Protein backbone atom coordinates (compact mmCIF):
# COMPACT_ATOMS: atom_id res chain seq x y z
CA UNK A 1 0.00 0.00 0.00
CA UNK A 2 1.25 3.52 -0.66
CA UNK A 3 2.56 5.44 2.26
CA UNK A 4 0.40 8.55 2.37
CA UNK A 5 0.95 11.38 4.79
CA UNK A 6 -1.62 14.17 4.86
CA UNK A 7 -0.82 17.44 6.50
CA UNK A 8 -2.01 21.02 6.61
CA UNK A 9 1.04 23.27 6.90
CA UNK A 10 0.89 26.97 7.67
CA UNK A 11 -0.60 27.96 4.29
CA UNK A 12 -3.50 25.66 5.21
CA UNK A 13 -2.96 23.84 1.98
CA UNK A 14 -4.19 20.32 1.74
CA UNK A 15 -0.98 18.55 0.82
CA UNK A 16 -0.44 14.85 0.32
CA UNK A 17 2.88 13.05 -0.04
CA UNK A 18 2.88 9.81 -2.04
CA UNK A 19 6.03 7.79 -1.55
CA UNK A 20 7.23 5.10 -3.97
CA UNK A 21 4.90 6.33 -6.66
CA UNK A 22 5.51 5.23 -10.24
CA UNK A 23 6.22 7.32 -13.30
CA UNK A 24 4.51 5.83 -16.36
CA UNK A 25 5.86 8.22 -18.98
CA UNK A 26 8.43 5.84 -20.45
CA UNK A 27 9.29 2.16 -20.28
CA UNK A 28 11.73 2.67 -17.40
CA UNK A 29 8.63 2.85 -15.13
CA UNK A 30 10.68 4.27 -12.25
CA UNK A 31 8.85 3.37 -9.04
CA UNK A 32 10.83 5.49 -6.60
CA UNK A 33 9.00 8.79 -7.04
CA UNK A 34 8.06 10.93 -4.08
CA UNK A 35 5.15 13.09 -5.14
CA UNK A 36 3.94 16.22 -3.38
CA UNK A 37 0.30 16.67 -4.27
CA UNK A 38 -1.75 19.83 -3.80
CA UNK A 39 -5.17 18.34 -3.22
CA UNK A 40 -6.90 21.72 -3.38
CA UNK A 41 -5.54 22.49 -6.83
CA UNK A 42 -5.53 18.86 -7.94
CA UNK A 43 -1.98 18.89 -9.17
CA UNK A 44 1.43 17.50 -8.40
CA UNK A 45 3.76 20.27 -7.31
CA UNK A 46 6.92 18.26 -6.76
CA UNK A 47 8.16 14.98 -8.15
CA UNK A 48 11.31 14.00 -6.28
CA UNK A 49 13.60 11.60 -8.20
CA UNK A 50 11.80 12.25 -11.50
CA UNK A 51 13.83 12.98 -14.64
CA UNK A 52 13.05 15.90 -16.92
CA UNK A 53 10.49 13.81 -18.82
CA UNK A 54 8.95 12.50 -15.62
CA UNK A 55 8.61 16.00 -14.19
CA UNK A 56 6.80 17.15 -17.33
CA UNK A 57 4.56 14.08 -17.08
CA UNK A 58 3.61 14.76 -13.46
CA UNK A 59 3.36 18.55 -13.64
CA UNK A 60 1.42 18.82 -16.91
CA UNK A 61 -1.29 16.27 -16.14
CA UNK A 62 -3.74 18.53 -14.37
CA UNK A 63 -7.52 18.35 -14.43
CA UNK A 64 -8.61 20.07 -17.62
CA UNK A 65 -12.02 21.65 -17.93
CA UNK A 66 -13.49 19.71 -20.82
CA UNK A 67 -16.45 17.41 -21.43
CA UNK A 68 -16.13 13.75 -20.51
CA UNK A 69 -17.73 12.74 -23.80
CA UNK A 70 -18.14 14.35 -27.20
CA UNK A 71 -20.19 12.69 -29.94
CA UNK A 72 -19.77 14.34 -33.33
CA UNK A 73 -18.29 17.28 -31.45
CA UNK A 74 -21.31 17.73 -29.18
CA UNK A 75 -21.24 17.13 -25.45
CA UNK A 76 -22.94 13.92 -24.35
CA UNK A 77 -23.26 11.78 -21.25
CA UNK A 78 -20.90 8.92 -20.48
CA UNK A 79 -23.75 6.45 -21.03
CA UNK A 80 -24.57 7.94 -24.43
CA UNK A 81 -20.91 7.75 -25.39
CA UNK A 82 -20.61 4.11 -24.40
CA UNK A 83 -23.92 3.26 -26.17
CA UNK A 84 -22.75 4.90 -29.40
CA UNK A 85 -19.30 3.34 -29.22
CA UNK A 86 -20.75 -0.15 -28.69
CA UNK A 87 -23.15 0.29 -31.61
CA UNK A 88 -20.33 1.42 -33.92
CA UNK A 89 -18.23 -1.61 -33.02
CA UNK A 90 -21.07 -4.10 -33.39
CA UNK A 91 -22.19 -2.63 -36.73
CA UNK A 92 -18.69 -2.71 -38.22
CA UNK A 93 -17.55 -5.51 -40.53
CA UNK A 94 -13.86 -5.09 -39.67
CA UNK A 95 -13.51 -3.23 -36.36
CA UNK A 96 -10.05 -2.64 -34.93
CA UNK A 97 -8.58 -1.45 -31.67
CA UNK A 98 -5.16 0.14 -31.47
CA UNK A 99 -2.91 1.88 -28.95
CA UNK A 100 -3.09 0.43 -25.42
CA UNK A 101 0.48 1.22 -24.41
CA UNK A 102 -0.47 4.10 -22.11
CA UNK A 103 -3.15 2.46 -20.00
CA UNK A 104 -3.17 -0.25 -17.35
CA UNK A 105 -3.09 -3.98 -17.95
CA UNK A 106 -6.56 -4.13 -16.42
CA UNK A 107 -7.86 -1.85 -19.21
CA UNK A 108 -5.87 -3.67 -21.90
CA UNK A 109 -7.45 -7.02 -21.09
CA UNK A 110 -10.97 -5.58 -21.50
CA UNK A 111 -10.09 -4.09 -24.89
CA UNK A 112 -8.78 -7.47 -26.09
CA UNK A 113 -11.96 -9.16 -24.86
CA UNK A 114 -14.13 -6.69 -26.80
CA UNK A 115 -12.27 -7.47 -30.04
CA UNK A 116 -12.48 -11.20 -29.30
CA UNK A 117 -16.24 -10.83 -28.80
CA UNK A 118 -16.84 -8.99 -32.07
CA UNK A 119 -14.26 -10.86 -34.17
CA UNK A 120 -12.21 -7.68 -34.55
CA UNK A 121 -8.53 -6.85 -34.78
CA UNK A 122 -6.29 -5.93 -31.85
CA UNK A 123 -2.96 -4.21 -32.23
CA UNK A 124 -0.80 -2.05 -30.00
CA UNK A 125 1.84 0.62 -30.52
CA UNK A 126 4.35 -2.22 -30.31
CA UNK A 127 3.81 -2.78 -34.02
CA UNK A 128 5.47 0.59 -34.75
CA UNK A 129 7.95 0.35 -31.86
CA UNK A 130 9.67 -2.94 -31.08
CA UNK A 131 7.27 -5.11 -33.07
CA UNK A 132 10.20 -6.15 -35.26
CA UNK A 133 12.09 -7.17 -32.09
CA UNK A 134 9.04 -9.23 -31.09
CA UNK A 135 9.17 -10.98 -34.46
CA UNK A 136 12.90 -11.58 -34.07
CA UNK A 137 12.30 -12.91 -30.55
CA UNK A 138 9.95 -15.53 -31.99
CA UNK A 139 12.53 -16.44 -34.59
CA UNK A 140 15.76 -16.72 -32.62
CA UNK A 141 14.83 -16.36 -28.94
CA UNK A 142 16.23 -13.92 -26.40
CA UNK A 143 19.00 -14.24 -23.83
CA UNK A 144 17.35 -11.99 -21.29
CA UNK A 145 17.57 -10.44 -17.84
CA UNK A 146 15.84 -7.96 -15.61
CA UNK A 147 17.22 -4.44 -15.32
CA UNK A 148 18.01 -5.27 -11.69
CA UNK A 149 20.27 -8.11 -12.77
CA UNK A 150 21.94 -5.84 -15.32
CA UNK A 151 22.47 -3.13 -12.72
CA UNK A 152 24.12 -5.58 -10.35
CA UNK A 153 26.24 -7.52 -12.83
CA UNK A 154 26.82 -5.93 -16.24
CA UNK A 155 30.37 -4.65 -16.84
CA UNK A 156 29.91 -4.14 -20.60
CA UNK A 157 26.87 -2.13 -21.66
CA UNK A 158 26.19 -1.56 -25.35
CA UNK A 159 23.40 0.76 -26.55
CA UNK A 160 22.64 0.26 -30.23
CA UNK A 161 20.43 2.69 -32.16
CA UNK A 162 19.07 4.63 -29.23
CA UNK A 163 19.47 7.92 -27.39
CA UNK A 164 18.49 7.18 -23.78
CA UNK A 165 19.77 10.55 -22.53
CA UNK A 166 16.77 12.12 -24.27
CA UNK A 167 14.23 9.30 -24.44
CA UNK A 168 14.89 7.38 -21.18
CA UNK A 169 17.08 9.65 -19.02
CA UNK A 170 17.11 7.42 -15.94
CA UNK A 171 18.08 4.32 -17.86
CA UNK A 172 21.68 5.44 -17.35
CA UNK A 173 21.41 6.49 -13.73
CA UNK A 174 19.03 3.91 -12.32
CA UNK A 175 19.78 0.75 -14.24
CA UNK A 176 22.79 0.43 -16.50
CA UNK A 177 25.57 3.04 -16.42
CA UNK A 178 26.21 4.88 -13.16
CA UNK A 179 24.55 2.88 -10.37
CA UNK A 180 26.68 0.75 -8.10
CA UNK A 181 25.71 -2.90 -8.11
CA UNK A 182 26.45 -6.08 -6.18
CA UNK A 183 29.32 -7.01 -8.52
CA UNK A 184 29.85 -3.50 -9.86
CA UNK A 185 30.91 -1.74 -6.62
CA UNK A 186 32.29 1.37 -8.31
CA UNK A 187 29.42 2.07 -10.70
CA UNK A 188 30.49 3.53 -14.01
CA UNK A 189 34.18 3.01 -13.23
CA UNK A 190 33.58 -0.73 -13.35
CA UNK A 191 31.68 -0.61 -16.63
CA UNK A 192 32.57 -0.05 -20.25
CA UNK A 193 29.78 1.73 -22.07
CA UNK A 194 29.53 1.56 -25.86
CA UNK A 195 27.11 3.57 -27.97
CA UNK A 196 26.42 2.62 -31.58
CA UNK A 197 24.49 5.12 -33.68
CA UNK A 198 24.40 6.90 -37.03
CA UNK A 199 24.93 10.29 -35.41
CA UNK A 200 26.29 11.83 -32.22
CA UNK A 201 23.57 12.52 -29.67
CA UNK A 202 23.24 13.70 -26.09
CA UNK A 203 23.98 10.12 -25.08
CA UNK A 204 27.38 10.04 -26.77
CA UNK A 205 29.34 11.73 -23.93
CA UNK A 206 28.21 8.99 -21.56
CA UNK A 207 29.90 6.33 -23.69
CA UNK A 208 33.51 5.21 -23.37
CA UNK A 209 33.41 4.12 -27.00
CA UNK A 210 31.28 5.64 -29.75
CA UNK A 211 30.77 3.62 -32.92
CA UNK A 212 29.35 5.59 -35.83
CA UNK A 213 27.61 3.41 -38.41
CA UNK A 214 26.53 4.52 -41.87
CA UNK A 215 22.71 4.85 -42.01
CA UNK A 216 21.04 1.56 -42.86
CA UNK A 217 24.17 -0.55 -42.30
CA UNK A 218 23.49 -1.88 -38.79
CA UNK A 219 22.79 -5.41 -40.00
CA UNK A 220 26.10 -5.60 -41.84
CA UNK A 221 28.00 -4.50 -38.74
CA UNK A 222 26.15 -6.94 -36.50
CA UNK A 223 26.71 -9.81 -38.91
CA UNK A 224 30.40 -8.95 -39.18
CA UNK A 225 30.62 -9.02 -35.37
CA UNK A 226 28.95 -12.44 -35.33
CA UNK A 227 31.44 -13.72 -37.86
CA UNK A 228 34.40 -12.37 -35.91
CA UNK A 229 33.09 -13.81 -32.65
CA UNK A 230 33.01 -17.19 -34.35
CA UNK A 231 36.51 -16.70 -35.80
CA UNK A 232 35.30 -16.38 -39.41
CA UNK A 233 36.62 -14.06 -42.10
CA UNK A 234 34.83 -10.86 -43.03
CA UNK A 235 34.91 -8.64 -46.09
CA UNK A 236 38.04 -6.51 -46.43
CA UNK A 237 35.99 -3.48 -47.37
CA UNK A 238 33.86 -3.60 -44.22
CA UNK A 239 34.82 -0.03 -43.29
CA UNK A 240 33.86 1.26 -46.72
CA UNK A 241 30.52 -0.55 -46.50
CA UNK A 242 29.57 0.32 -42.94
CA UNK A 243 31.74 3.19 -41.75
CA UNK A 244 33.17 1.00 -38.96
CA UNK A 245 36.84 0.04 -39.13
CA UNK A 246 38.16 -3.50 -38.76
CA UNK A 247 40.19 -2.36 -35.75
CA UNK A 248 37.04 -1.08 -34.05
CA UNK A 249 35.22 -4.36 -34.77
CA UNK A 250 38.11 -6.42 -33.40
CA UNK A 251 38.21 -4.27 -30.26
CA UNK A 252 34.47 -4.72 -29.73
CA UNK A 253 34.71 -8.46 -30.22
CA UNK A 254 37.55 -8.68 -27.71
CA UNK A 255 35.58 -6.68 -25.16
CA UNK A 256 32.41 -8.70 -25.72
CA UNK A 257 34.12 -12.07 -25.39
CA UNK A 258 36.14 -11.05 -22.34
CA UNK A 259 33.61 -9.20 -20.22
CA UNK A 260 32.07 -10.79 -17.15
CA UNK A 261 28.52 -9.92 -18.10
CA UNK A 262 27.50 -8.04 -21.23
CA UNK A 263 24.25 -6.47 -22.34
CA UNK A 264 23.08 -5.20 -25.71
CA UNK A 265 20.25 -2.67 -25.50
CA UNK A 266 18.26 -2.36 -28.73
CA UNK A 267 16.89 1.04 -29.69
CA UNK A 268 14.42 1.93 -32.40
CA UNK A 269 17.31 2.93 -34.63
CA UNK A 270 17.38 -0.80 -35.36
CA UNK A 271 13.66 -1.56 -35.69
CA UNK A 272 12.53 1.49 -37.65
CA UNK A 273 15.15 1.39 -40.34
CA UNK A 274 16.27 -0.85 -43.17
CA UNK A 275 16.46 -4.41 -41.89
CA UNK A 276 13.87 -4.03 -39.13
CA UNK A 277 13.37 -7.50 -37.56
CA UNK A 278 16.54 -8.79 -39.22
CA UNK A 279 18.49 -6.15 -37.28
CA UNK A 280 16.88 -7.17 -33.99
CA UNK A 281 17.41 -10.84 -34.86
CA UNK A 282 21.08 -10.13 -35.48
CA UNK A 283 21.40 -8.53 -32.03
CA UNK A 284 19.65 -11.46 -30.32
CA UNK A 285 21.80 -13.93 -32.26
CA UNK A 286 25.01 -12.08 -31.39
CA UNK A 287 24.07 -12.11 -27.69
CA UNK A 288 23.29 -15.83 -27.91
CA UNK A 289 26.59 -16.56 -29.70
CA UNK A 290 28.53 -14.72 -27.00
CA UNK A 291 27.22 -17.07 -24.33
CA UNK A 292 29.76 -19.57 -25.59
CA UNK A 293 32.39 -17.29 -24.06
CA UNK A 294 30.71 -15.32 -21.25
CA UNK A 295 27.27 -14.27 -20.06
CA UNK A 296 25.53 -11.95 -22.49
CA UNK A 297 21.94 -10.67 -22.70
CA UNK A 298 19.94 -8.44 -25.04
CA UNK A 299 16.96 -6.24 -24.17
CA UNK A 300 14.85 -3.83 -26.21
CA UNK A 301 14.56 -0.34 -24.68
CA UNK A 302 10.80 0.19 -24.69
CA UNK A 303 9.12 3.55 -25.15
CA UNK A 304 5.68 3.98 -23.64
CA UNK A 305 4.95 3.37 -19.96
CA UNK A 306 3.01 0.14 -20.41
CA UNK A 307 3.82 -0.99 -23.93
CA UNK A 308 5.47 -4.05 -22.36
CA UNK A 309 2.24 -4.70 -20.46
CA UNK A 310 0.35 -4.56 -23.75
CA UNK A 311 2.64 -7.26 -25.17
CA UNK A 312 2.08 -9.39 -22.10
CA UNK A 313 -1.69 -8.96 -21.91
CA UNK A 314 -2.29 -9.53 -25.62
CA UNK A 315 -0.03 -12.60 -25.43
CA UNK A 316 -1.89 -14.04 -22.40
CA UNK A 317 -5.22 -13.66 -24.10
CA UNK A 318 -4.45 -14.50 -27.72
CA UNK A 319 -1.10 -16.27 -27.78
CA UNK A 320 0.50 -13.46 -29.82
CA UNK A 321 1.93 -10.10 -28.78
CA UNK A 322 0.42 -7.65 -31.34
CA UNK A 323 -1.24 -7.56 -34.77
CA UNK A 324 -3.87 -10.17 -33.82
CA UNK A 325 -7.02 -10.80 -35.82
CA UNK A 326 -10.19 -12.60 -34.67
CA UNK A 327 -12.12 -12.48 -37.98
CA UNK A 328 -12.25 -16.26 -38.16
CA UNK A 329 -13.33 -16.60 -34.56
CA UNK A 330 -9.86 -17.56 -33.35
CA UNK A 331 -6.69 -15.47 -33.05
CA UNK A 332 -4.29 -15.19 -35.99
CA UNK A 333 -1.02 -13.28 -35.93
CA UNK A 334 0.49 -11.81 -39.04
CA UNK A 335 2.52 -8.58 -39.00
CA UNK A 336 1.97 -6.69 -42.24
CA UNK A 337 -1.53 -8.11 -42.56
CA UNK A 338 -3.12 -7.42 -39.18
CA UNK A 339 -0.95 -4.56 -37.97
CA UNK A 340 -2.84 -1.28 -37.79
CA UNK A 341 -0.64 0.80 -40.03
CA UNK A 342 -1.20 -1.72 -42.84
CA UNK A 343 -4.90 -2.31 -42.15
CA UNK A 344 -5.54 1.44 -42.32
CA UNK A 345 -3.29 2.15 -45.30
CA UNK A 346 -5.07 -0.55 -47.31
CA UNK A 347 -8.44 0.90 -46.32
CA UNK A 348 -9.69 -2.40 -44.87
CA UNK A 349 -11.18 -1.40 -41.55
CA UNK A 350 -14.55 0.33 -41.14
CA UNK A 351 -14.36 1.34 -37.46
CA UNK A 352 -11.50 2.02 -35.05
CA UNK A 353 -11.27 2.22 -31.26
CA UNK A 354 -8.07 4.08 -30.40
CA UNK A 355 -6.93 3.93 -26.78
CA UNK A 356 -4.20 6.25 -25.48
CA UNK A 357 -2.52 6.72 -28.82
CA UNK A 358 -2.35 9.20 -31.66
CA UNK A 359 -2.16 7.42 -35.03
CA UNK A 360 -3.53 10.49 -36.83
CA UNK A 361 -0.20 12.10 -35.99
CA UNK A 362 2.17 9.16 -36.17
CA UNK A 363 1.03 7.01 -39.09
CA UNK A 364 1.63 7.35 -42.81
CA UNK A 365 -0.43 9.84 -44.78
CA UNK A 366 -2.39 7.08 -46.50
CA UNK A 367 -3.28 5.46 -43.17
CA UNK A 368 -4.33 8.79 -41.68
CA UNK A 369 -6.52 9.57 -44.69
CA UNK A 370 -8.44 6.32 -44.20
CA UNK A 371 -8.73 6.86 -40.44
CA UNK A 372 -10.41 10.20 -41.15
CA UNK A 373 -13.07 8.46 -43.28
CA UNK A 374 -14.32 5.92 -40.72
CA UNK A 375 -16.01 6.24 -37.32
CA UNK A 376 -13.31 6.54 -34.67
CA UNK A 377 -13.72 6.10 -30.92
CA UNK A 378 -10.93 7.56 -28.79
CA UNK A 379 -9.93 7.47 -25.15
CA UNK A 380 -7.22 9.95 -24.24
CA UNK A 381 -6.18 12.26 -21.43
CA UNK A 382 -5.53 15.19 -23.78
CA UNK A 383 -6.63 16.51 -27.15
CA UNK A 384 -4.67 14.99 -30.01
CA UNK A 385 -4.82 14.86 -33.79
CA UNK A 386 -6.79 11.62 -33.42
CA UNK A 387 -9.32 12.95 -30.91
CA UNK A 388 -9.98 15.79 -33.36
CA UNK A 389 -11.25 13.37 -36.02
CA UNK A 390 -13.16 11.14 -33.59
CA UNK A 391 -16.87 10.46 -33.76
CA UNK A 392 -16.91 9.51 -30.06
CA UNK A 393 -14.25 10.98 -27.81
CA UNK A 394 -13.85 10.04 -24.16
CA UNK A 395 -11.68 12.22 -21.90
CA UNK A 396 -10.19 9.81 -19.38
CA UNK A 397 -8.17 9.87 -16.16
CA UNK A 398 -4.38 9.59 -16.35
CA UNK A 399 -3.02 6.18 -15.40
CA UNK A 400 -0.54 6.26 -12.56
CA UNK A 401 -1.54 9.79 -11.57
CA UNK A 402 -5.30 9.39 -11.11
CA UNK A 403 -5.68 5.61 -11.24
CA UNK A 404 -4.12 2.50 -9.77
CA UNK A 405 -3.54 -0.71 -11.65
CA UNK A 406 -0.65 -2.68 -13.06
CA UNK A 407 2.01 -1.81 -15.61
CA UNK A 408 5.04 -3.73 -16.88
CA UNK A 409 8.50 -2.23 -16.93
CA UNK A 410 10.50 -2.74 -20.13
CA UNK A 411 12.09 -5.87 -18.64
CA UNK A 412 8.68 -7.53 -18.08
CA UNK A 413 8.59 -6.78 -14.36
CA UNK A 414 5.02 -5.92 -13.21
CA UNK A 415 4.65 -2.86 -10.99
CA UNK A 416 1.58 -1.59 -9.12
CA UNK A 417 0.60 2.04 -9.52
CA UNK A 418 -0.01 4.46 -6.65
CA UNK A 419 -2.32 7.26 -7.72
CA UNK A 420 -1.77 10.83 -6.53
CA UNK A 421 -5.22 12.41 -6.71
CA UNK A 422 -8.73 11.61 -7.93
CA UNK A 423 -10.06 12.64 -11.30
CA UNK A 424 -13.64 13.42 -12.29
CA UNK A 425 -12.95 11.63 -15.57
CA UNK A 426 -13.55 7.89 -15.84
CA UNK A 427 -10.66 5.48 -16.25
CA UNK A 428 -9.97 3.72 -19.56
CA UNK A 429 -10.95 0.51 -17.82
CA UNK A 430 -14.34 1.90 -16.72
CA UNK A 431 -15.16 3.14 -20.22
CA UNK A 432 -14.05 -0.14 -21.78
CA UNK A 433 -16.04 -2.17 -19.23
CA UNK A 434 -19.12 -0.11 -20.13
CA UNK A 435 -18.58 -0.65 -23.84
CA UNK A 436 -17.97 -4.38 -23.35
CA UNK A 437 -21.19 -4.73 -21.37
CA UNK A 438 -23.15 -2.98 -24.12
CA UNK A 439 -21.47 -4.93 -26.92
CA UNK A 440 -22.41 -8.21 -25.26
CA UNK A 441 -25.96 -6.95 -24.68
CA UNK A 442 -26.33 -5.92 -28.33
CA UNK A 443 -25.09 -9.31 -29.48
CA UNK A 444 -27.27 -11.31 -27.04
CA UNK A 445 -30.52 -12.49 -28.55
CA UNK A 446 -29.38 -11.65 -32.03
CA UNK A 447 -27.65 -14.10 -34.26
CA UNK A 448 -24.15 -14.54 -32.88
CA UNK A 449 -21.53 -12.76 -34.91
CA UNK A 450 -20.53 -15.09 -37.70
CA UNK A 451 -16.89 -15.76 -38.26
CA UNK A 452 -15.72 -15.47 -41.83
Amino acid at each position, binding site marked *: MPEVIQSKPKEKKNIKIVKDATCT*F*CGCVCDDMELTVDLDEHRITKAKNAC*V*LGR*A*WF*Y*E*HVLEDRPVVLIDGKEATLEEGMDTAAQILVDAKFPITYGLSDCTCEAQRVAVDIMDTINGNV*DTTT*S*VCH*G*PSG*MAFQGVGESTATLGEIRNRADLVIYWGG*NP*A*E*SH*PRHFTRYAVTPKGMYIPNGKKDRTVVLVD*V*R*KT*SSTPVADIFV*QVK*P*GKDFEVLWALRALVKGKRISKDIEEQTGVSREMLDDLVYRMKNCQYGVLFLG*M*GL*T*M*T*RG*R*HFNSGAVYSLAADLNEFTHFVAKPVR*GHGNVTGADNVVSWQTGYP*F*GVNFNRGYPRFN*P*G*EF*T*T*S*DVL*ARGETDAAMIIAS*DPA*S*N*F*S*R*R*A*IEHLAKIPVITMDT*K*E*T*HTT*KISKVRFAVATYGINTGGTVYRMDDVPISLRPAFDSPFPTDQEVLEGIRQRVKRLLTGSKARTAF
Partner: protein
Amino acid sequence: MILVPGRSQKQGTSLNKGKLKDEYLTVTTTAEMNESDMQRMKLVNGDKIQLKSDVGQAVVTCKSKKKEDLPAGMIFIPYGPSSSQLMASDTAASGMPMSKHMEVIVTKV
Protein backbone atom coordinates in the same frame (compact mmCIF):
# COMPACT_ATOMS: atom_id res chain seq x y z
CA MET B 1 19.43 13.61 -48.25
CA ILE B 2 18.67 11.05 -45.53
CA LEU B 3 16.04 12.07 -42.98
CA VAL B 4 16.29 10.41 -39.57
CA PRO B 5 13.31 11.21 -37.33
CA GLY B 6 13.73 10.36 -33.65
CA ARG B 7 12.92 11.21 -30.06
CA SER B 8 14.15 14.38 -28.41
CA GLN B 9 13.89 15.60 -24.87
CA LYS B 10 11.93 18.71 -25.85
CA GLN B 11 9.54 16.61 -27.83
CA GLY B 12 9.02 14.44 -24.77
CA THR B 13 8.38 17.33 -22.41
CA SER B 14 6.20 19.28 -24.81
CA LEU B 15 3.92 16.38 -25.66
CA ASN B 16 2.91 16.31 -22.00
CA LYS B 17 1.60 19.84 -22.41
CA GLY B 18 -0.39 18.76 -25.44
CA LYS B 19 0.29 17.64 -28.99
CA LEU B 20 -1.85 20.44 -30.38
CA LYS B 21 0.04 23.12 -28.45
CA ASP B 22 2.47 25.50 -30.16
CA GLU B 23 5.52 24.20 -28.30
CA TYR B 24 5.07 20.63 -29.56
CA LEU B 25 4.32 21.80 -33.09
CA THR B 26 7.45 23.98 -33.10
CA VAL B 27 9.65 21.17 -31.80
CA THR B 28 8.37 18.68 -34.39
CA THR B 29 8.82 21.10 -37.28
CA THR B 30 12.43 22.00 -36.55
CA ALA B 31 14.98 19.98 -38.50
CA GLU B 32 18.69 19.76 -37.66
CA MET B 33 21.12 19.93 -40.59
CA ASN B 34 24.86 19.64 -40.95
CA GLU B 35 26.34 23.16 -41.05
CA SER B 36 28.26 22.44 -44.26
CA ASP B 37 25.08 21.36 -46.00
CA MET B 38 23.38 24.53 -44.83
CA GLN B 39 26.22 26.71 -46.10
CA ARG B 40 26.16 24.90 -49.45
CA MET B 41 22.41 25.55 -49.73
CA LYS B 42 22.79 29.15 -48.52
CA LEU B 43 20.63 28.46 -45.49
CA VAL B 44 20.79 30.09 -42.07
CA ASN B 45 19.18 29.09 -38.80
CA GLY B 46 15.45 29.74 -38.92
CA ASP B 47 15.07 29.42 -42.69
CA LYS B 48 12.17 27.37 -43.99
CA ILE B 49 12.94 24.32 -46.07
CA GLN B 50 10.72 21.91 -47.91
CA LEU B 51 11.35 18.20 -47.42
CA LYS B 52 9.92 16.08 -50.20
CA SER B 53 9.78 12.28 -50.29
CA ASP B 54 8.15 9.91 -52.78
CA VAL B 55 4.90 10.06 -50.82
CA GLY B 56 4.61 13.52 -49.32
CA GLN B 57 6.13 16.81 -48.38
CA ALA B 58 6.50 19.05 -45.35
CA VAL B 59 7.78 22.53 -44.70
CA VAL B 60 9.97 22.82 -41.61
CA THR B 61 12.47 25.21 -40.03
CA CYS B 62 16.17 24.37 -40.22
CA LYS B 63 18.74 24.57 -37.47
CA SER B 64 22.47 23.91 -37.85
CA LYS B 65 24.45 21.17 -36.16
CA LYS B 66 28.22 20.88 -36.08
CA LYS B 67 29.57 18.64 -38.82
CA GLU B 68 31.15 16.32 -36.27
CA ASP B 69 27.78 15.80 -34.59
CA LEU B 70 25.59 15.22 -37.63
CA PRO B 71 27.12 13.74 -40.80
CA ALA B 72 26.77 15.61 -44.08
CA GLY B 73 23.73 14.51 -46.05
CA MET B 74 21.75 13.65 -42.91
CA ILE B 75 18.83 15.55 -41.37
CA PHE B 76 17.38 14.89 -37.92
CA ILE B 77 13.84 15.87 -36.93
CA PRO B 78 11.84 14.94 -33.82
CA TYR B 79 8.96 12.57 -34.66
CA GLY B 80 5.66 14.27 -35.33
CA PRO B 81 3.03 15.06 -37.92
CA SER B 82 5.64 16.49 -40.34
CA SER B 83 7.85 13.40 -40.41
CA SER B 84 4.75 11.19 -40.74
CA GLN B 85 3.75 13.03 -43.90
CA LEU B 86 7.00 11.88 -45.50
CA MET B 87 6.71 8.25 -44.46
CA ALA B 88 5.62 5.59 -46.95
CA SER B 89 2.86 3.26 -45.82
CA ASP B 90 4.55 0.06 -46.97
CA THR B 91 5.84 -2.02 -44.08
CA ALA B 92 7.45 -4.90 -46.02
CA ALA B 93 5.15 -7.32 -44.17
CA SER B 94 6.50 -6.24 -40.80
CA GLY B 95 3.87 -3.80 -39.54
CA MET B 96 6.56 -1.14 -39.25
CA PRO B 97 6.74 1.63 -41.85
CA MET B 98 10.24 2.85 -42.66
CA SER B 99 10.17 5.58 -40.02
CA LYS B 100 13.87 6.39 -40.14
CA HIS B 101 16.26 6.59 -43.04
CA MET B 102 13.87 8.33 -45.47
CA GLU B 103 15.26 9.75 -48.69
CA VAL B 104 14.14 13.36 -49.13
CA ILE B 105 14.83 16.21 -51.51
CA VAL B 106 15.54 19.45 -49.66
CA THR B 107 14.77 22.87 -51.13
CA LYS B 108 14.81 26.34 -49.64
CA VAL B 109 11.32 27.83 -49.38
